């Protein structure tokens, strides 16, 4: 029995380590590429840079790249805060409150999430244009301030969430809204952090909407800028610049992830401490 556990442990660690290495590999390769010279890249070359060149990074920061990073940061942060509040409220209502039209609204949302985005893009453009929002960051913020997928996720979360605490609070005379903000939200931190990361990620990575809605280079979002960079430099095989751009675009969101890591599935620590 004891020996079995030992082997099992070794297998578990081996799989986890191998998968982690597999994950890191493409990124390591991209970082190494970003420090090569364009000529070395065109010639095929070795795994490590023959001579370390920072010209790719210099070209990157000489462009408007930093402005685009700032735009994406501001828009993504605002959108994330709105989403976390609105999605959680809706998910909570679906899971806990038996109101008129709940079943209908839920089916409707299930239906809406299945329509491919390509179709609604042009009608959406017409709506946004009629609201006079074209070429503003509000066009992104307002159109993505809720997300049905995460309303769906929060509903599942609250279905699995113990009812007892809320019932006790309800006995104490708190209103549903009061219960929601005073009891439910603080207890839902892990789910909220998870949601926040995914929402931020979604906005940070959104491609089609910025492309259609925003056309002034000063207002570009990062993905648009990255795409512009790759269009400019791919033909001359300047993969050093492109990889520098791709890698740098991951850094802010990775930092946010580290920052929220503490709350992200916080319950996890419980199983470790138990041993």
């Amino acid at each position: 029995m004891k020996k079995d556990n030992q082997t099992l442990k070794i297998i578990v660690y081996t799989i986890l380590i191998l998968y982690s290495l597999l994950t890191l590999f493409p990124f390591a390769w991209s970082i190494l590429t970003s420090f090569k010279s364009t000529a070395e890249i065109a010639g095929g070359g070795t795994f490590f840079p023959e001579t370390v060149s920072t010209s790719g990074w210099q070209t990157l920061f000489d462009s408007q790249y930093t402005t685009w990073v700032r735009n994406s940061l501001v828009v993504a942060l605002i959108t994330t805060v709105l989403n976390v509040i609105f999605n959680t409220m809706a998910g909570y209502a679906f899971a806990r409150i038996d109101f008129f039209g709940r079943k209908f609204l839920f089916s409707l949302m299930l239906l809406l999430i299945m329509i491919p985005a390509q179709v609604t893009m042009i009608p959406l453009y017409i709506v946004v244009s009629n609201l006079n929002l074209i070429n503003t960051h509000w066009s992104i913020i307002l159109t993505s301030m809720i997300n049905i997928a995460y309303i769906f996720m929060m509903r599942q979360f609250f279905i699995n969430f113990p009812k007892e605490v809320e019932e006790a609070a309800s006995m104490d005379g708190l209103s549903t809204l009061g219960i929601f903000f005073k009891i439910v939200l603080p207890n839902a931190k892990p789910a909220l952090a998870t949601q926040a990361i995914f929402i931020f990620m979604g906005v940070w990575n959104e491609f089609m909407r910025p492309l259609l809605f925003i056309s002034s280079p000063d207002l570009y979002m990062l993905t648009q800028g990255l795409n512009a960079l790759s269009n400019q430099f791919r033909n001359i095989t300047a993969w050093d610049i492109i990889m520098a751009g791709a890698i740098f675009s991951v850094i802010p969101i990775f930092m946010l992830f580290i920052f929220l890591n503490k709350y992200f599935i916080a319950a996890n620590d419980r199983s470790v401490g138990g041993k």
Partner: protein
Amino acid sequence: MNKFVKSLGMVSTIALLAACNNGDGGAEEAGEQDETSTVEDNGGNGGNVNLAVWGSSPAETNALEETISSFEEETGIEVELEIIQDNFQDAMTARFAANNAPDVFYLEAFAAPMFIESGVLENISGEIDDVDDFFDPLIDVFRGGEDELYAVPKDYSTLALYVNEDLLEAAGYSTEDIPRDWDDLMAFADELQGDLEDNQAAMIFDQTLARHYSAFINNGLDPAGEEGSADFTSSPEAIEYFESIIEGKEAGYLQNPQIDMGIDSAGAAFGANRAAMMIEGNWVISALNQEYSDLNYAVLESPTINGEEQSMTFSVGYTVSRDAENREEAIAFINYMTNDGLQQWSELSGTLPPRESVADAMDLFDNPVLEPHVLAAEYGTVWSSGESLPVVASAFDNYFQAAVNGTMTVEEAMQAAEEEANAELDRR
């Protein structure tokens, strides 16, 4: 299932409401907004004009900005520049659908018939100065059924034959040995391949219709010439031409840079001494001169097919949207950019000027690298042919790739492409 039906009912009700609203209210509202925004933005004395372009190289963007400044100084009209990085066509379609089109925008010849037929462009016949000075094929492509003019070319590219002189010399040949006719050129490439190193190709090829449309034309067939039908098969000579490409690919003297050599672009393969010849547009020149400055190369005119000169021409113009808010300013802008400001634009951006007088002033006819490209402006086939072309081209590219991969013969591929294109055109 019941839930689903209920939801559907709801959606369709809203659809009807929305449809009614959109029919009358929407357009008006959009119009009003445009007016207010004009009043606010109108800082200069000479009015303003907004211009939408697609993103290209930093050099071209700088050139555009500088030429625009010259125009603003000259006229006092302010230009509001928007750069759309990708999917330009979709963005323009969306803007027309939302009654929010820019005053002036780039129009490539390929998409011109669709815009012209839809009636969304302003007829600018008689408002452009000195039209005869343009190379005819470049501007004629922007004319409608009754010869009315909808756009003015700002620059163009043509295909020419690039030769790597170092490789040729090492293999024991010189530029003079290169035959002008396509069939002889293939025979020469076959011979040359034997004298090259293993990782080198005699010639690079591209398999899209955009590069070979003129081969059909020279054999008397316009695949998308008749509106609403496609024809790839009625010219046996054209089929032979495409078979010669497959033959070369199988024998190894024709290679595709991405598929066979693993290099991102033809220019990079040529520049890295991996290919002795390529048929490419003048867009490769700046990369060849900057990234591969040690390279010795010569440029010749495209090979003749069926005994006649041929090349492909890619023409891009400025167009004005119909009922543009700032129509007068828009036309003034186009006139400046394609006339007084043309030389400045061409020199800064490194593109070819569509006016013969400017080409003369820039001494392009004496420039050994550019001359073959400029000569082709007269005889090249412009990549544009009616509203059916996008469907026809997409069907060709879909199936000719199968012939290149060896899963279909050229004849089968052409037959299949023709059937697919015709079926799709019938559905429209």
